């Protein structure tokens, strides 16, 4: 049903995602602070950060090349492109045939790729370290993602997000099938890894030995940093809505009536809050892993994914 409204809605939900992303991260931070008995910054702090960063001048290393200046835009663009593909509010979006889950994954990899290059560009030891570790984590989380996709595709018979959501809504039993649950677990771990959350990386630290993401973008400042940060936050939101809408699709609007969309927005916010709480609690409970323990964590998620596959083979 590629109605013009369809496009407007699709673009609108992308804009919504962009708008909500900082808030979501702010919420997570606030929750974590609360859980750690701190007062914590207000939920809208990230918006302020963005405004500040956009207003500040950019400082670029004398060693940096044009790539250093292009990278933020590539990162932001690829993440936004992903936002067009992920069902946030309504399915099927007219952009659904443009890309499936694989495209989503590899678009995000595109961003990571350029960010890692940008980390190497100024020729500082931190950047190199960050890129190296970031790429390592990214590479190792690929198979898990692929298998999670495989599991979903098995159930839904397609790798396209709209299809998957539609299918799951068609038979709710699928949602509680063990295959789905295991895939969900796997994807959750990947979410932690891909977004540089604890226990893989600590988004709040600048202690070089533990940094991954932060080390990579250490050289960035001003609007460039703003773009990168915003993209990172958007990524979190997108992963959350993937987790929320792929596995628990209820509430996602299938018809573009205002009521349906309103309901969809409400459920989306609810899902986000729940996931935020889960994440906050989780991050508060666990400590950061040594870098060379991270593969073990990813191995766990891989095993989950393999189980998901086998289970869904068995129940097929």
């Amino acid at each position, binding site marked *: 049903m590629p109605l013009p409204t369809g496009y407007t809605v699709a673009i609108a939900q992308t804009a919504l995602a962009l708008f909500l992303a900082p808030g979501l991260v702010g919420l997570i931070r606030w929750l974590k602070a609360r859980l750690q008995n701190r007062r914590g910054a207000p939920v809208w702090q990230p918006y302020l950060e963005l405004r500040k960063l956009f207003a500040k001048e950019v400082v670029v290393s004398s060693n940096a090349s044009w790539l250093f200046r292009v990278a933020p835009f590539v990162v932001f663009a690829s993440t936004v492109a992903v936002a067009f593909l992920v069902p946030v509010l309504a399915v099927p979006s007219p952009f659904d045939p443009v890309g499936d889950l694989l495209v989503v994954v590899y678009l995000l990899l595109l961003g990571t790729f350029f960010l890692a290059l940008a980390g*190497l560009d100024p020729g500082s030891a931190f950047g190199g370290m960050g890129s190296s570790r970031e790429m390592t984590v990214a590479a190792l989380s690929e198979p898990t993602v692929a298998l999670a996709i495989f599991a979903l595709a098995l159930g839904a018979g397609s790798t396209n997000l709209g299809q998957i959501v539609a299918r799951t809504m068609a038979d709710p039993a699928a949602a509680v099938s063990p295959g789905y649950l295991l895939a969900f677990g796997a994807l959750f771990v990947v979410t932690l890894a891909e977004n540089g959350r604890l226990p893989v990386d600590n988004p709040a630290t600048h202690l070089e030995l533990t940094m991954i993401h932060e080390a990579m973008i250490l050289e960035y400042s001003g609007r460039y940093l703003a773009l990168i940060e915003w993209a990172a936050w958007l990524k979190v939101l997108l992963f959350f809505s993937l987790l929320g809408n792929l596995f628990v699709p209820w509430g996602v609007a299938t018809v573009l009536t205002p009521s349906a969309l309103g309901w969809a927005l409400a459920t989306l916010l609810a899902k986000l809050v729940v996931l935020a709480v889960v994440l906050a609690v989780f991050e508060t409970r666990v400590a950061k892993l040594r870098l060379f323990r991270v593969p073990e964590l990813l191995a766990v998620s891989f095993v989950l994914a393999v189980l998901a596959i086998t289970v869904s083979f068995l129940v097929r």
Partner: protein
Amino acid sequence: MIFLLMVAGYLFGALAALLFARGWVARWLTAAGAIIGGACAVTLAVAEVFGFDIGSFQIIVVLARRPWWLQGGVIQDPAQPLSAVFLGVVGAIAIPAALYSIGYTRAWEGRRSLRMPGAMLNLFLLSMSLVPLAENILWFVLFWEGMAVTSYLLVMTEAEEPETVHAGNWYLGMTQFGLGFILAAFFLLLPPDGSGDFTALAKHAATLSPGLKSLVFVLALIGFGSKAGLVPLHVWLPSAHPAAPSHVSALMSGVMIKLGVYGVLLFGLRLLGGGPAWWGGLVLTLGAVSALLGVLYALMEHDLKRLLAYHSIENIGIIFIGVGAGMMFLSYDLPALAVLGFVGGLYHTINHACFKGLLFLGAGSVLHATHTRNMEEMGGLIKRMPRTALFFLVGAAAISALPPLNGFVSEWVVFQALLGGASIPQREVAVLMPIAVAMLALASGLAAACFVKAFGITFLGIARSHEAEQAREAPVSMQVAMAALALACVVLGAAAYAMVPALGRVVAGLAGLPPASAVTVSWSLRVPLSAPGAVGQISPLPILLGLALLLVAIPIGLWLSRASRALRVSDTWGCGRIAQTPRMQYTAAAFAEPLRRIFAALYRPTEDVSIDFHPESRYFVQSIAYRAHIIPWFERYLYDPVIDRVIAWAARVRAIQSGSLHAYLTYLVAALVIMLGLLMLWGS
């Protein structure tokens, strides 16, 4: 007609090189010949694959009937679609490679004559173009060996370095090894009337017992796999490809090894007409293993060209994953999925030719500028050779399967084929598919990491050596060649709608595959999946355009918004260090260190660190020497033992020539007596 023109073009190029040997005339004419030949090859291929009529080439068949005991067809007439694809690949890379050679070989002036390399380049291209067109055992083997010997001589171009000679020995040795298996495979199919014609072979093969068929297939797989560089037959590849001049490396890595794929398809589909599922399973497994091991060894390489060579192993692995999946689906009578698998394999064949060619040419420009292949001595080249850097970046992104470039699209097709594997009735077999998916995903992820290293350490940061500081941008001809391939990487990605159905038509009819109904094409690419009716679909072109749009829109948006536009250039922040030196950067070794630890089980790394401290205090270090090695499993545990065994036997046999006349005479008489004894036995 065009066919004749192609042959003439290559021969002309070879002749020109032989006649002029040096100077710009030789360089241009040599390249011109190759370019003409390549253009004709592409024309033939495109016409065949996309089904225009440009007339067939009857003439050559008449010409070609001269050599001995040739029965049946000689040269395909017209080219079969499958052959046309590979012919096209040869031509498509021949053109930029030849163009590139104009600038690249200028550095040889005075040092080395163009006679051999130029002539061999053209003959190499000629034989490569004729291999897929051969329609008869003799011709196939003739061109196959011609390809081997010409490329061998090209590898030996820079034989000053001892390792080049070593590489050459390995290369020719493995070629002959493979040839043995190929000959066995062919001649086991020989029909009673002794006709070496492929159609006759196929007809005869239909009458053979399954066991014999399987034997033939395995022999062919070993023979052609050794050319394609499948693990564990890959050992020659990482040493031979880098040793050659870069435009030749591009051809060997981008094109030549693909003919191994052609060979497997020729046997698996055309001559044997498909077989039991385990054929496909074997191919799939070998492919997956090659893909993973290839990239894992690439990660440990700091020699830019060797790194690329290892990635060829990886990509050949991906291609074989597609082909293997296709063969399995074929045996389970899932034609739509089978087509998908083969299409994925062929598509990736073409794409890999483009970006691997591009990358080798880029590496060549770097080598040309810095005179080293060691990444640890590079850095900061993006400022001195910006265009080369850009092109290399495109290639790197393409080989890392990043959308919207071609590498991603073909890998996506392979992925979809594997996902479809869920619908294989036998579950224990179907489970193979997700494993392949996981390995493929890991491989592509690691490839991305590897190329962040390759590009980042080589082009970004600060120059690590004097040569890197003095580097100059490559000559125009080389830039144009690279630009063309970079463009191809983008276009081939966006043009999936045209490519995929065309390739579907190519495999149609082989081993009873249906015409490419499997892949329906609208503005998006729709492929069937396990569940009936369900499809996976992507639209490369919109992705490309969308990204482009965003990349334009976002800066403009920023510009229009109230965001600050100020920009200050300053030193890299270094925790209060005074000055920043190149030595403080991350090195290639350091970059790969985490993965080296994680996969220690495979690498078995051994490192020796030697620190000598400052005489006053152990807290001051004067110098640290760090050296790390990884175990070359296959060389050490597969090849070396065999070689040692042979040498041991040889020593024993040479002892026969003891020098004692009496011993010699005794052999003689002993032989006589034994023969007489045998005769007695035979008589009674």
